[in-house]
């Protein structure tokens, strides 16, 4: 059958038309085809080929003709469709590789209609607006920005939940979705453990330790600090994330990490974990640790949380069985917990060389949750530690710039970062502080974190080295010795290189512990020995 389709007033260049013609001739069921402008010559040609000339009457050179000789209606229709598609085909001129740049969220959506997550780090005053637009467009949102109001957070999370979308943040520093790092995150192996975390470096520390234990992460969802803590937010994101992980076949164990939730939120979170049908681990920093339930293990620190999650994912189906597999650090260094003796041995070796008057612990942190973990441990063990993160007003630092007694300081706190980059991005402020603590003759031990991963400084260990050297030299000049205890939060796959970061610290005489928890224990022990007058 011979069919003619006309589009009037549509000029196309001849090269285009020849290409379209060639494309049609290759189609199944098409005997012959011409895509051409209706010039007198082409009209005559079509007539000669036996196409109905009546349909060509009155056409001119600015009218497009698609003439198809096909075996049947279907083939003819397909050919005509193909002809118009090939002529109107759009192709965005994409930059060769790399990240495409556009001017707005809607332009980005036009460029990639299949986009599924918006990562938002614009100034807080605008972040809620962009997040709202992203959610309205059906995207999950991760809001890195802080300074988003509580009302905005609640409104955004209600909107998100109504659409079944994840609203991570505001003030959400990290997440790992489908194995890809969002904002500050480490290159962690994929595996069976799904994480819901209301704290940035808490998520980083647990996921890195899980990687070290040989397990991996299915998803790690950040929620933002207020999600569980604030009753009005009510854990909306956490609860949705738990439900999704419960239904996710790739997730075998759910790990929840955060600061202590509001009581009613805690009840909902625990209920959701019970209802998940999967073994779970929960760790709320600084809160009393409840006894394990049938399917929920309550961990007392980040390291234990990571270890219990790993064991539950590795064949132990319940918390009780999992705990029986944990060994003291003697010999078994895969699934172990530090013994008091081992920590003391390390601490004593360092404390031996302390000088007269060296008495206090000084923790200098770039990661907020890591700071909290050390602070809570030290505050309980040493009978009072000052901090800008203290929940007890009696121990809140009057002046965060000046250390007095035992002090554990969060250098990523708003007090330090107003108008400056976060110390995880630029560790210069921490290095300065480290050098200053070293010049204080009362400093007995310096405790630091080194956080690797995407988003962090290229060489956070290296950035501390000159300050460590100077601080140690100053102590030696006074006839003492300055122990520096560190942990490195990272994996071998992180861009900074895990082994190299540790080696750089050890070369300066830094004691590098395998977790923040252990580093804090060692530092606390040194401070305890110092306080007892252990220094000779």
């Amino acid at each position, binding site marked *: 059958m011979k069919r003619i389709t006309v589009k009037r007033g549509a*000029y196309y260049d001849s090269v285009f038309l020849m290409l379209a013609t060639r494309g049609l001739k290759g189609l199944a069921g098409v005997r012959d085809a011409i895509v051409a402008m209706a010039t007198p010559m082409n009209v005559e040609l079509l007539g000669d080929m036996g196409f109905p000339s009546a349909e060509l009457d009155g056409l001119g050179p600015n009218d497009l003709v698609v003439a198809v000789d096909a075996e049947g209606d279907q083939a003819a229709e397909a050919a005509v469709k193909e002809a118009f598609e090939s002529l109107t085909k759009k192709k965005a*001129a994409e930059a060769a590789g*790399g990240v495409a740049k556009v001017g707005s969220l809607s332009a*980005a959506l036009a460029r*990639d209609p299949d986009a599924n997550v918006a990562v938002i780090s614009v100034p807080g005053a605008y972040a809620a607006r962009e997040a709202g637009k992203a959610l309205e467009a059906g995207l*999950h949102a991760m809001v890195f920005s802080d300074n988003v109001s509580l009302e905005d957070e609640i409104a955004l999370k209600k909107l998100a939940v109504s659409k079944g979308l994840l609203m991570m943040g505001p003030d959400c520093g990290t997440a790992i979705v489908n194995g890809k790092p969002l904002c500050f995150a480490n290159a962690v192996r994929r595996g069976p453990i799904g994480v819901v975390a209301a704290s940035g470096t808490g998520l980083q520390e647990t996921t890195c330790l899980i990687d070290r234990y040989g397990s991996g992460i299915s998803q790690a969802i950040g929620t933002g600090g207020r999600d569980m803590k604030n009753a009005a937010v009510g854990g909306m994101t956490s609860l*949705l*994330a738990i439900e999704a992980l419960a239904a996710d076949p790739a997730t075998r164990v759910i790990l929840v990490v955060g600061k202590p939730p509001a009581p009613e939120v805690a009840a909902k979170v625990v209920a959701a974990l019970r209802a998940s049908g999967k073994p779970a681990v929960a760790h709320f920093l600084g809160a009393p640790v409840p006894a394990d339930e049938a399917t929920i293990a309550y961990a007392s620190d980040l390291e234990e949380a990571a270890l219990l999650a790993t064991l539950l994912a590795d064949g132990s189906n319940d918390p009780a069985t999992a705990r029986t597999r944990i060994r003291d650090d003697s010999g078994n260094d895969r699934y172990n917990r530090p013994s008091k003796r081992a920590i003391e041995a390390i601490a004593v070796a360092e404390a031996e060389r302390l000088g007269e008057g060296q008495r206090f612990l000084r923790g200098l942190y770039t990661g907020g949750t890591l700071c909290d973990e050390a602070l809570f441990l030290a505050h309980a063990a040493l009978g009072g530690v000052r901090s800008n993160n203290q929940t007890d007003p009696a121990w809140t630092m009057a002046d965060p710039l000046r250390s007095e007694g035992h002090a554990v300081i969060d250098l990523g706190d708003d007090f330090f970062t107003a108008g400056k980059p976060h110390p995880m991005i630029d560790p210069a402020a921490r290095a300065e502080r480290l050098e200053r603590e070293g010049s204080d003759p009362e400093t007995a031990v310096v405790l630091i974190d080194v956080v690797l991963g*995407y988003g962090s400084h290229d060489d956070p260990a290296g950035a501390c080295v000159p300050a460590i050297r100077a601080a140690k030299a100053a102590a030696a000049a006074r006839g003492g010795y300055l122990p520096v205890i560190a942990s490195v939060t990272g994996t071998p796959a992180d861009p900074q290189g895990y082994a190299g970061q540790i080696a750089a610290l050890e070369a300066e005489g830094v004691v590098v512990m395998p977790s923040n928890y252990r580093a804090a224990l060692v530092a606390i022990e040194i401070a305890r020995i110092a306080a007892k007058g252990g220094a000779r």
Partner: protein
Amino acid sequence: MNAKPVLALFNAELRAINLGLDSFAANLDREGAKAIQVDWRPPAGGDVKAIAALDAIAAGTKVDVEKANAEAVRRILAAEPTVIGIGVAKDVVPGMEPDLILHAGPPVTWDRMCGPMRGAVIGGLIFEGLAKTPEEAEKLAASGRIRFDPCHHHDAVGPMAGIMTANMPVWILENKAFGNKAYCTLNEGLGKVLRYGAYSSEVIDRLTWMRDELAPILSKALALHGPIDMKSVIAQILQMGDEGHNRNRAGTSIIIRELAPHIVMLDYPKEKLSRALAFLNANDHFFLNLTMPSAKCTVDAAAGIEGSTIITTMARNGTEFGIKLSGLPGRWFTGPAGVIDGLYLPGFGPEHASRDIGDSVITETSGIGGFAMAAAPAIVKFVGGSPKDAIDVTMRMYEITNAESENYRIPALDFRGTPTGIDVRKVVETGILPAINTGIAHKDPGVGMVGAGLVKPPENAFRDALVAFAEKYAKRL
């Protein structure tokens, strides 16, 4: 709760849109995830009122904006601009009278007119025989006995000063799809010309010759040729290195090809026919006065659609830049005319430049000109020097438009259609302003063209229009 969308995310390839710190996008890219970086700026430059208007429109309007815009864009794309003849302004242009002078841009009074526009008014009055000397003309113009009105209020457009008087010959275009017409004077060429504010005897003599000899010749030749389908001619020139505003060499050549066989058949002395052809040949921009009314009758068909945020007019008078929205017919939103970032003819520099002037930005309004910059590698010098810069200009315009032309296509973009249908919401939201190509007039009357380049329209005109739109259409503001 409904966790299905989250599970869908877990099972999909992660495709991120990153707003803010670009290292986050770079990290995702490095980890093999798809990421698009939004070069984020505060919406509406942080203007609280404009942001509130954007949000109010997004929250709900009395008329469906998307539907209204789809109709506006449909009409722009369906337009069939066609040259149907040449007439005398007073005979064909609606409302044209002997005491009326039409000018470019939004309304402006004599006392606020810039130098080139005053010069062109002086020339126009002399051409009409209403004044004998420039002094007499100035006095008459200031006397109140001459009325001034924008070309745009009379279905017309004019390049640069855009002065049209009663006895000037004009092109008549008809949008065959909708039946509306548009008018424009014939292009006088470069150098000392009326549209740049020159009014010496050489200028007046040329205008007189155009009226008495050129226009009749072209009119008769056009009658023999029949109507010219501008849509297909513009489609062709975009594939021949013109963008439809600052470069008109291909378009002018096509018009000569179309008319020449008929011109030579006319019953005129050979010298006169030759002079007419030579005039066309010597004036690269002859075609501009055809693209402008083509664009005008194209976008006019989309004016006055309830609830549409599509921009249907942009124009400048050397003092102010103004726009109109489809959904707010009859209202101009203006801001100060911009300073042109351009390249200058020998002997001239920015200190000689008049501010942005002319109705030729109607080409951009319709989706060609600066919007089709990627089609015109020969004039990339205006946008930074390399074809890549020209492509970038066009690519940015896709972010503030709602459609792509089905007919006007750009070879360098793999024949992608030109960005069409400027949405004022997108302009305000992104802060991406329409890219406008333009000529530069000398700031003093009587000198003429001193260069060409790109100009940024004033952002406040777009914000004001958006706020007014929200006031009229938003359910709550």
